[in-house]
């Protein structure tokens, strides 16, 4: 009997083994290496020698005192805030519109989902051209509309650069939220709406008392994905402003790249990566806890 049980256990482990191996090779080992490097001073060129390069927690201590890093985190937070509110509100509104039986609904779905499938580099370059202070379309339209007082160098002006990037990030990303919200809306039984309508509920009451409570898990999923995706914004920044002017559009990933490529400080870049990952993990954890609390409430 024991032999049979042992055999079953062995078989179970054997089936899980490939997944464990893959996970170890592609996740655990790289994470271990990154963590090891974060404790070292290494330029990425010389042969890596842990004993020789080890500097303890010095990279992390420096990182906690790095004002540029924390301002980059705040800037990514600002873009995330705009994405969480403006982008997701737009996505929800469009999903609500498309959830109704409207003429050409599928065409709208395709149109709204187009920006996310475009290459970020292409989007960044096209919008850089639109925002261009010299010959950009936006300034041209403003002139045409008689709003020449609003004309500016959108991406070189420290007051507008980050917001301009955030708006394009939202334009590029709202399609994801739209699709998920739409899928969520379509799982709500229509009978609930019909029954409420028979009871005389207004559109707002339908939305407040049926749609919102049943969509809470979807809101949480979308908000977690938005935070994780937006905090890691990078390609748009690189193709639109390169982090400038000054440090005004720097975000954590551009700082990691600068440490790694610009300064050949692989160890410091790894410590930035670890800290950034920890922050994202913490934010996601808080969001999940909050969602559980909201569900119970």
């Amino acid at each position: 009997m024991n032999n049979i049980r042992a055999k079953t256990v062995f078989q179970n482990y054997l089936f899980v083994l490939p997944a464990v191996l893959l996970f170890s090779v592609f996740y655990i080992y790289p994470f271990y290496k990154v963590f090891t490097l974060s404790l070292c001073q290494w330029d990425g060129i010389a042969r890596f020698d842990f004993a020789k390069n080890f500097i303890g927690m010095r990279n992390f201590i420096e990182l906690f005192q790095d004002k540029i890093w924390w301002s980059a985190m705040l800037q990514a937070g600002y873009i995330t805030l705009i994405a969480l509110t403006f982008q997701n509100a737009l996505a929800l509104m469009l999903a609500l519109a498309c959830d109704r039986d409207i003429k050409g609904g599928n065409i709208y779905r395709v149109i709204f989902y187009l920006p996310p499938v475009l290459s970020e580099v292409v989007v960044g370059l096209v919008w850089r051209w639109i925002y261009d202070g010299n010959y950009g379309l936006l300034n041209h339209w403003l002139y045409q509309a008689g709003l020449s007082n609003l004309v500016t160098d959108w991406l070189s002006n420290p007051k507008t650069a980050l917001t301009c990037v955030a708006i394009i990030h939202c334009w590029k990303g709202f399609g994801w939220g739209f699709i998920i919200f739409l899928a969520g809306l379509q799982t709500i039984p229509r009978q609930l709406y019909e029954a409420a309508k028979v009871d005389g509920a207004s559109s707002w009451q339908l939305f407040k008392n049926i749609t919102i409570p049943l969509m809470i898990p979807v809101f949480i999923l979308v908000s977690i994905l938005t935070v994780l995706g937006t905090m890691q914004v990078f390609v748009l920044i690189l193709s639109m402003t390169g982090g400038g002017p000054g440090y005004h559009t720097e975000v954590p990933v551009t700082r990691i790249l600068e440490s790694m490529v610009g300064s050949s400080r692989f160890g410091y870049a790894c410590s930035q990566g670890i800290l950034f990952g920890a922050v994202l993990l913490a934010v996601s954890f808080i969001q999940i806890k909050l969602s559980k609390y909201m569900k119970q409430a």
Partner: protein
Amino acid sequence: MLSLFTVFLSIFLVSCGPQVQNKLQAESITVWHWMSDREGAFLELAKRYEAETGVKVNFELYAPSDAYAQKVRAAAQTNTLPDIFGILGEKRDFASFVKSDYIYDLTEEMNKENSAWRNKLFAKALSVNEFEQGNSFDVKPGIYGVPIDVTNIQMLYNKDLLRSAGVETENPPKTWEDLIEINKKLKTKGIQGIVSGWGERWLIDCIASNYAFNIMGKDKVLDTIRGNVSYTDPDWIKVFDLFREMRDEGMLASGIVTMVNKTAEQLFANNRAAFAFNGSWCVNVYKGMNPDLNYGAMLPPRVSDKYPMAIWGGAGSSFMVNKRSKNVQPAVDFLKWITNAPQQIFLSKETQDLPSNKYSLKDIPMVLSQFAGAMDNTTHPNVWGVSEFPVVIEAFDKGIQSIIIGEKTPEQLAGEVQQVKEREMAKKQ
């Protein structure tokens, strides 16, 4: 009997193996590069080399340059570098490659036959690949790379735009005051002044160090890097103040602080700005964008007469030989061949780059000869023997962007850069 024969045959083949392999490898060498604009010319040269020597040269293009630089680093870690490759980065990165034994020392080859190879190359281009005695990187003195072209970065002026503003184009501005006067004339005609890709920090670094050399001289600049002179020194503030002045005089093209050089090149090529700050590679770029562009090259207008105006220049692109390659000698032979006059003339004609062989300057376009004429004024951080901390360079360049957008004063920037410098020096001790 048959089995005995098989054993002997196996032993024979195994013992012959490495030689056979070496011979095969010597018949083909691999070169990694990032120069997409030169790919066609390289492939043609590879064909010619194979026809002449029987050695096949595989040029492998990895672009863009950022991706290439990372690939080379990764290959170094896995010991899979090709026979010939280039290093993109600063001198300290180059030094790290040399110290880690990835790069073959070419000094002996350069000095053979009364330094025949060394003598045909521009000395300034070669010095970029050289480590001198007592260098601060602690690298064994020697020449570790071969320039395949030379470059320098100057100012370009649009003759038609200057003429339309009433400026005599035969005499482009020589002094800072001239430049300001011309800019005033340009402004009245609604013509933009200077355009350059100052969103790419290295171009800001370049023009700032040009003026630093002109205002305080090489020794003081290097003393600052060594930590003996503060960035709050009045001469440095004078350098930073030039950017404030350019901003106040409306001399800079709109959006210059986030502009990439490609955009700047488009603006200048399309007659949208009177001046550009760009490298000699622009001749080829402008030719592609606007073959009728009427322009010339000049040194940046000097601020002071005390020291000469220095411009960044030297080797444009260089190749290194992998010390661990089994094909060191064939790789060296190929580099000697590619830097010979016929190949250099071919490359120069195809790519409009300045050849690294000084006997190949025949039949180059007028603008390119203006660039060639300024080679004596060139300098480069890679030949200074000391290098600034990367974070100081970043604070310096980003700070200049902040001056241009009116966020910081020259004095504020000087203080901030010095603070970063002191922090880094304290870490080093």
